[in-house]
């Protein structure tokens, strides 16, 4: 690995720009995501910047249990994020569809449609868990480089104080990942 690649890896790890997308969330996770940028948690210390356009972003943060209406939007926005990119699923909803499981309005969980790199379980997760998830996604980006998303099982950020949520989410996420995980080239536009 030459010097330029090392610098690039380091920069990717230290400059995660996120794009926030709601796929039918109850707004709980969205509020926590915004709270993670507020003075109390201050994600900008890690270089995190909330971008208005998916074209500028490196990390796609998706909240919500993925309703039928939002599937096409998710695929479009995922295609609009320029590579290398990572996806962070925030909350229990995108991981397992949570309490909305078996609802006829849903087409979740999220990794049926796009490859998810990090799950941040919780209902809603704490802002520090979200920041940890974004930082982990930035590390994954730095390690991955320009290659396509690998087929490794997604990471789960453990939640302090959440009863059993962590284990349930992890099992569901890994199961869903193994059953149906499209490659990124299929959904890329």
């Amino acid at each position, binding site marked *: 690995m030459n010097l330029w690649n090392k*610098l*690039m890896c*380091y*920069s*990717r790890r*230290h*400059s995660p*720009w996120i794009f926030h997308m709601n796929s039918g969330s109850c707004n709980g996770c969205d509020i926590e995501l915004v709270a993670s940028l507020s*003075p109390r948690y*201050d994600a*900008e*210390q890690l*270089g995190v*910047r909330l*971008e*208005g*356009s998916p*074209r*500028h972003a*490196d990390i796609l943060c998706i909240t919500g249990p993925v309703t039928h209406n939002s599937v096409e939007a998710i695929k479009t926005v995922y295609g*609009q994020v*320029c*590579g*290398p990119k990572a996806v962070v699923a925030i909350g229990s909803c995108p991981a397992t569809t949570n309490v909305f499981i078996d609802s006829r309005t849903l087409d979740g969980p999220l990794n049926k449609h796009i490859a998810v790199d990090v799950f941040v379980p919780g209902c809603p997760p704490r802002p520090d868990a979200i920041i940890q998830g974004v930082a982990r996604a930035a590390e994954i980006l730095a390690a991955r480089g*320009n290659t396509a998303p690998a087929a490794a099982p997604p990471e789960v950020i453990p939640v302090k104080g959440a009863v059993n949520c962590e284990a349930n989410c992890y099992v569901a996420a890994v199961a869903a990942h193994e059953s149906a995980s499209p490659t990124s080239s299929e959904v890329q536009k």
Partner: protein
Amino acid sequence: MNLTTALARFLIFPGLLFALPAAWFFLWVERKAVARMQGRFGPPFMQPFFDFIKLLGKSTPPRSGIGGLLMRAWPLIAVSAAAGAVGLLPVLPSSGGFEGDLILLLALLELPSMCIIAAGFSSRSIFGEIGSAREAALSVSYNVVFLLAIVSIAASQHTFRLEALAQMPASPLQILGILAILVCLPAKLHINPFSLPNAEQEIYSGPITEYAGPELAMWELSHGLEWVAATGLVATLAAPHLTTWWLAALVFVVLSFVVVFLLSAVAAATARLQIDTTVRFYWQCTLIFAVLAISSALFMRLRS
């Protein structure tokens, strides 16, 4: 100014070798100052540099045809214009320059915002077009005051040569002109309360919504260079005349830093104004500064 000094000014000081780190440093100072004033810790020191390198390593969406070519060209033109503007600043004593370089500097300072307007329209995104329209309206408002203020300073000195303007003794007219320029800088640099063209809560990123990867890196860089050029213009006009080159350079850097800090404080303390309020602010409230400055300049000319 011969070719060697021109190249040295463009490439070394105050040109690219100084301007690139200065651009990243000023971008960091702005973000850090705003963060500290909001009670946050703010980004680390090297953040704008890391952002730039990271953006260079990202892919861009495929663009075809003449529209795609133009979209790739605009950020490059903006960066070169801003870098050229920094290179023209008469920082060092007896650094050369030529008759009329003030006019070239003003044109180069204006070019990045022209490029942003064109970029928004050629990206054919609705947010880009709205952002470009706002930028155009803003440009028409602040430029009247900006140009009148500079022209009044130039008219009082009977020259369009930057070095002569930098060496002029302090006068009430000069202070008035610098104040009018300072009022225009937040609009020129798209920061609060005039951050209309890139109002992220309303129109995403405005004209640069569709840009990604290296092109976006160039936009960030041109924004940083605009910071250096615009604050540097104020610094050169406000700096006392010094003959020692290192002292002149030091005073230039310190004054630029003070202006950046002042503008960041204004940005952190204010909220975004509406477009009609902004236009009214420049045409009704600040035009009086400029008219006062130019009329006193003309009066002084008639009297002398």
